[in-house]
């Protein structure tokens, strides 16, 4: 076999499928099963990273035709730099998560068999890789469904709980509605490529050659965008995300949020930039506006959550929004033939894709470690974990800093690039866009600030202070497998943050192929140190120098505080003479988000009740105070409830036809036949 990126990546998929095949042999020894399968999948991920990095770095495009599938419709596989980039992102995170899973899944030993989890984990990873490898509509959809079905079973893993079943069902519905839209979109494109006489239009290669009339291209794009948006969790199609991510096992949520959502981003980029190629600016505007709405709504909903994993799930909505902002801007710039700016925005979007995969994976792994240790997802019941889980706390903090887009970590770089793209939009020829796009920049800034607030809350309430819970679980630090997965992810966050020029140099081939220009990232001397997207006098950033500066300040502050013994001493908290302070009186998640709830309350469906039980003496001396707060997604009532009710109503009407008598059914067919015969005579 010739060594080439596509062969390496295909063998990675084969390795994953192989590890599914050996599961039955190891079923009786669950500990061995976990070790073997997850080690194999991390090996497969390493292979994938190698292939992906090579494909992007060398700018290589490989194709492969597999003679399986339907007769005359073989599967086409292709690796180009875009696919290579997404494969790198996917395999990078799946490598970390597979290592982490070795430790994490052992927590289930003795409680329930993990065979199904292992099987579907490997199929899920293979499915994701196949989606990116696919070069024809048929294989793409098959891989897409394999991915959806495997993740359905993963969400369903702890199926004795009703919330898991409900979340998995909701996820399945949304995934299928999306898949139908994608199928229709490919159908339109294939039909326009070769007409409906021949099937050859189903390959992406044929679609790349075709010219689509604007009307049909728009229909295809909108359908595809709808389908991919349902998978990515773009507002208002996001409702399945905060249900499914919290209930899945944490390693799976890390993959679903970090990687699976990215396949939708891949799909959007593939369909718009690669298959349709020519599009009007308002397609980009749709993507941009939905991205902005997702970013702002996602972070606002995240702020209201007190379930750690649910909070992270809403942050996925936000980050998908930020990625789509980059992609949407790039589409707008492309349609106005501004390749350099388009390259900038595309790089910003793709860089954020990679960053989000890494830091969201890290955060979900951290949340999983907390869940593993405390058996608790509700932040209100946590606190002070930094003392018992110092490693997890430090690593989770790195994730928090990264996602809050603070230097020197990676989130900052991509959001900074997105801002640069925003700030250059006055170059656009349309006055309307000139006016509106800066508003988007303001919303993005708001998102960043709110995200920071949200992670101050998430980290502060979970790890700082004292234990708030009623139960007293024996909290233990994560084991070395889990720690190594998180440490590698944290290091990657740092590397992506301080050496962005290296990575952007590596992936610069993608905008060259899709948007028609490279991003000249660096100018002047020390060019690997300074990230200069447009011109040095306009804006430049050096992650390394910022990192060194921050390190210097931190070291100095540490030395100042710790060099003298006795500069820090512990004392009881001053309680204003009240004398009855307990840990339930700490700042908690609900109280932290209160101000924001007051300002943005109109966006939520909030039910707040305060019930005072007065003492007999006087009502100024309350005996107990009950506070009840329920926050719901407004979109559920606006969009989903009517659909659900409508389908129930229709089903009930149709159900009347069903008499349960065979004769009745026969009469239906009889009448149908007679009527058809009369009309067709």
């Amino acid at each position: 076999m010739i060594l080439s990126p596509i062969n390496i990546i295909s063998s990675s998929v084969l390795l994953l499928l192989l590890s599914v095949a050996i599961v039955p042999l190891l079923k009786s020894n669950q500990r061995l099963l976990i070790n073997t399968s997850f080690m194999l999948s991390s090996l497969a991920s390493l292979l994938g990273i190698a292939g992906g990095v090579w494909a992007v770095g060398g700018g290589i495009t490989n194709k492969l035709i597999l003679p399986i599938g339907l007769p005359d419709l073989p599967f086409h596989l292709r690796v180009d730099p875009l696919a290579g980039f997404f494969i790198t992102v996917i395999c990078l995170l799946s490598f970390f998560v597979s290592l982490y899973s070795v430790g994490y899944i052992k927590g289930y030993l003795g409680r329930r068999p993990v065979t199904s989890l292992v099987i579907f984990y490997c199929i899920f990873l293979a499915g994701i890789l196949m989606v990116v490898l696919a070069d024809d509509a048929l294989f793409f959809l098959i891989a897409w469904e394999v991915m959806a079905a495997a993740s359905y079973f993963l969400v369903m893993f702890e199926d004795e709980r009703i919330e898991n079943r409900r979340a998995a069902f909701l996820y399945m519905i949304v995934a299928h509605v999306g898949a139908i839209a994608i199928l229709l979109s490919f159908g339109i494109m294939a039909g326009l490529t070769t007409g409906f006489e021949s099937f050859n239009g189903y390959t992406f290669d044929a679609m790349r050659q075709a010219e689509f009339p604007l009307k049909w291209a728009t229909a295809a794009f909108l359908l595809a965008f709808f389908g991919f948006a349902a998978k990515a969790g773009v507002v208002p199609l996001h409702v399945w995300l905060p249900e499914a991510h919290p209930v899945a096992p944490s390693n799976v949520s890390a993959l679903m949020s970090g990687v699976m959502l990215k396949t939708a981003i891949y799909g959007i980029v593939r369909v718009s930039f690669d298959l349709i190629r020519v599009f009007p600016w308002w397609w980009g505007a749709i993507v941009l506006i939905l991205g902005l709405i997702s970013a702002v709504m996602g972070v606002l909903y995240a702020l209201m959550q007190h379930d750690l994993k649910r909070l992270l799930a809403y942050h996925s909505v936000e980050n998908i929004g930020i990625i789509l902002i980059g992609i949407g801007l790039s589409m707008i710039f492309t349609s106005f033939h501004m390749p350099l700016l388009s390259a900038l925005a595309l790089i910003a979007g793709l860089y954020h894709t990679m960053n989000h995969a890494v830091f969201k994976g890290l955060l979900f792994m951290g949340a999983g470690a907390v869940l593993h240790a405390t058996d608790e997802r509700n932040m209100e019941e946590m606190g002070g974990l930094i003392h018992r889980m110092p490693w997890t706390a430090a690593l989770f903090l790195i994730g928090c800093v990264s996602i809050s887009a603070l230097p020197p970590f990676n989130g900052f770089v991509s959001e900074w690039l997105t801002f640069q793209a925003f700030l250059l939009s006055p170059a656009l020829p349309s006055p309307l866009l000139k006016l509106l796009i800066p508003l988007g920049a303001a919303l993005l800034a708001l998102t960043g600030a709110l995200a920071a607030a949200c992670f101050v809350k998430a980290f502060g309430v979970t790890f700082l202070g004292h234990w708030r819970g009623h139960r007293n679980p024996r909290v233990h630090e994560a084991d070395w497998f889990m720690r190594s997965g998180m440490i590698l992810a944290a290091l990657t966050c740092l590397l992506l943050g301080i050496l962005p020029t290296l990575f952007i140099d590596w992936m610069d081939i993608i905008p060259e192929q899709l948007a028609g220009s490279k991003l000249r990232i660096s100018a002047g001397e020390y060019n690997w140190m300074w990230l200069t997207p447009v011109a040095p006098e306009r804006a430049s950033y050096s992650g390394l120098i910022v990192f060194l500066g921050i390190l210097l300040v931190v070291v100095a502050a540490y030395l100042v505080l710790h060099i003298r013994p006795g500069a820090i001493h512990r004392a009881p908290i001053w309680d204003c003479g009240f004398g009855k302070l307990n840990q339930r009186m700490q700042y908690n998640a609900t109280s932290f988000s209160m101000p924001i709830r007051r300002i943005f309350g109109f966006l939520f469906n909030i039910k707040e009740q305060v019930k005072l039980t007065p003492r007999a003496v006087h009502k100024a001396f309350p005996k107990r105070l009950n506070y009840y707060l329920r926050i719901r997604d407004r979109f559920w009532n606006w969009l989903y409830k009517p659909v659900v009710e409508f389908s129930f109503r229709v089903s009930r009407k149709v159900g009347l036809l069903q008499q349960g008598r065979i004769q009745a059914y026969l009469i239906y067919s009889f009448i149908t036949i007679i009527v058809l015969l009369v009309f067709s005579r």
Partner: protein
Amino acid sequence: MDINVVAQLNSFLAAFVLLTAFGMLVQRRMYGLVHLFAWQGLFLSINTAIVGFVAGKHHLYISSLLTLSLKVFLLPYILHVLIQRLKVHKEVEVVENVPMTMLMGIALVIFSYYLMSPVTQLSTLVTRSTLAVALATVMIGLLMMITRKHAVTQIIGFLAMENGLFFAATSATYGMPLVVELGVALDILIAAFIFGIFFFHIHTTFDSLDVDQMARLKEED
């Protein structure tokens, strides 16, 4: 043999097929039904052989033999055994409103002739005049399934419908290709077995073969 004689014979046999179909529509006793079904099969088989002879299509002899062995001997035998095992041979099924059912059957025959008149005018086959009878047999089979309640009767209705289809194939195009006919014959045989199994299950579940009982399987709101 003279072509006119063949056409006469063909029409004559078609009349018998229709007659047996009407007979099955109102026959109340189980054994009577099975016998009528066997007779219908016999007429079909003879008809197929004659058509095969006059059209010079030798594969029709094979399908004629198949019909003879399957529909005249094997299927009636299976039904016979089924009726005995299920101990329903003494049951007399209540057929409601016999005149009305007969009238509907006649209406269907007229309707079939009306439907087939354009085809009959265009066709040049010897058997063209029996096409309407074939269609009528199919529809009467369906009507029988609708008006009867006993599960065994339903199956005989279904098989009668299949007889009609076979008849239609013979009269419209001198029979289907042999492969198709072999496949259909196999299907019928397997269907008979499956029905047999189902009857036992229905019988043990509901202690009756009245298909109205199955209305209880409906989901309640």
